[in-house]
């Protein structure tokens, strides 16, 4: 669960944005939604897959190949 303390710490260490207190309290809701999305998909990520494989997939799907 993402909490406002984490957002505050990450902002101080990395992002360095001028976030007011209300926004720091609000952001965890949106971030939690995104975290859940990738957590749900994580088991499907193949160690050997490469993001650039997407281009090969586009060409295979275009050709209607058995691999698509």
């Amino acid at each position, binding site marked *: 669960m993402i909490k406002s303390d984490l957002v505050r710490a990450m902002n101080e260490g990395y992002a360095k944005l001028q976030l007011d207190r209300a926004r720091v309290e609000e952001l965890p809701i949106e971030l939690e939604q*995104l975290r859940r999305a990738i957590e749900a998909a994580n088991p499907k990520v193949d160690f050997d897959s490469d993001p650039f494989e997407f281009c*090969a997939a586009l060409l295979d799907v275009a050709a209607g190949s058995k691999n698509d």
Partner: protein
Amino acid sequence: MTDWSRASLTEAAGAIAAGGTTSREVTEACLDRVARLGDTLNCFVEVDGDGARAAADAADKRQRSGAPLGPLHGVPLAHKDMYYRAGRVSACGSKLRADWRAPYTATALDRLDRAGAIDLGRLVMVEFAMGPHGYNQNYPQCRNPWNPQYIPCGSSSGSGVAVGGRMVHASLGSDTGGSIRCPAAVSGVVGLVPTNGRVSRRGAMPMSHSFDVVGPLARTARDCARLLGVIAGHDPADASSLDLAVPDYEAGLASAAALPTIGIARGYFDVGVDADVIKALDRTVDDLRRIGFSVEDVAMPCDLLDEIAELHPLIMKAEGAANHLSAMREREADYTFEVGHRLHAGFFIPAASYIRALKLRGAYLRTFAQSVFSKADLILTPVLPTQVPTIAETSGRTGKAYLDMVVALTRNTKVINFLGLPAISVPCGFTSNGLPTAFQLFGRSLHETALLRAADRYQQATDWHGREPGLVADAAQAVAV
């Protein structure tokens, strides 16, 4: 006397080439409409009347000389204010770039120039292309040409309004989650999203480089076919552009090959659809069958699409944050409240999460294609599941209410950007509030010809694309009087 602003792009181009009219006459007709409607609809950031007239006169001189003419010779267009033109301001809807002059010209604009198009000016867009409703507090409210109380959708808001309002014959938009298809749908025009990589993104402001696609909004599928033929093709300056031959899309419209089969999306895309939109889609299916298409239900892989819908914002926000880090640190006060807020989340997404989401894209595309395109060549869905909302209904939302609105407007379009597939938005009727509604067709990657051919056949048999907003008809009446 013909009002050439009301003709389609291909009709206007044909008449100019044949000497039936002049580029100057067509350009003046468009400028006249901009003068009549511009202050009501607020779709232009800048109108370059003098430049357009000079270019039109040069185009007419060339036509009279008998020199070869490009496929867009003398036709007035205008584009989303995020396409760079060397030495000219490209504000990207922002205060930050209000005076920023581009150091080079976008490849897509350069190709339109070479095809003979006239550039009428810069069109309003959502700030940095981040929002589906069409608001931008940096400018007067851009308004729907069918009813100024309703949203124009975005982020290519000015493009939809200018084409729907008959101020230009076509416009380049950009689409990261629906930003061509949604404005096209609510303005009653056609919007085409080519396959990811089909059109160079060089010189188009980046929003989310994995999803951004350059494409046209125009009045007919035939217009879009001509425009795609001009702008598509490999660009050595854009490493993501596909190095493949470009087919003759317009010739493909007349192909004698068997018509593509069409699947009605059952699941995911048909959730929460308004009754009037369902009626329009049902009528569309009847029309398509009458034309000769084979149309059958196709079950969507709903779990996969739900996952994709959740992963799309993760990638988009991470990439958007990467683009805006320096400016957000130094000048956040110069962002509108809404877009500044929309960018925040992207700064807190772990790199590993972002990259893992990208790693899934190829596999998910293959799974989706196997599941869907084994049953039909093209898939039919609504563009917007709902009726077009009013400005009052959608303005002033923040937090969860804002995110819910974004999700509602882009549910049916953003998943296609994740998959990188081509799609087209085609007007197919009106809902009870008097605003247009539209269907979306999507197909296999690089199968734009099939999409355009299906849309063109539909438009030959129906007249939704020929209907004009009351404001346009009123302005025409005023001229006649």
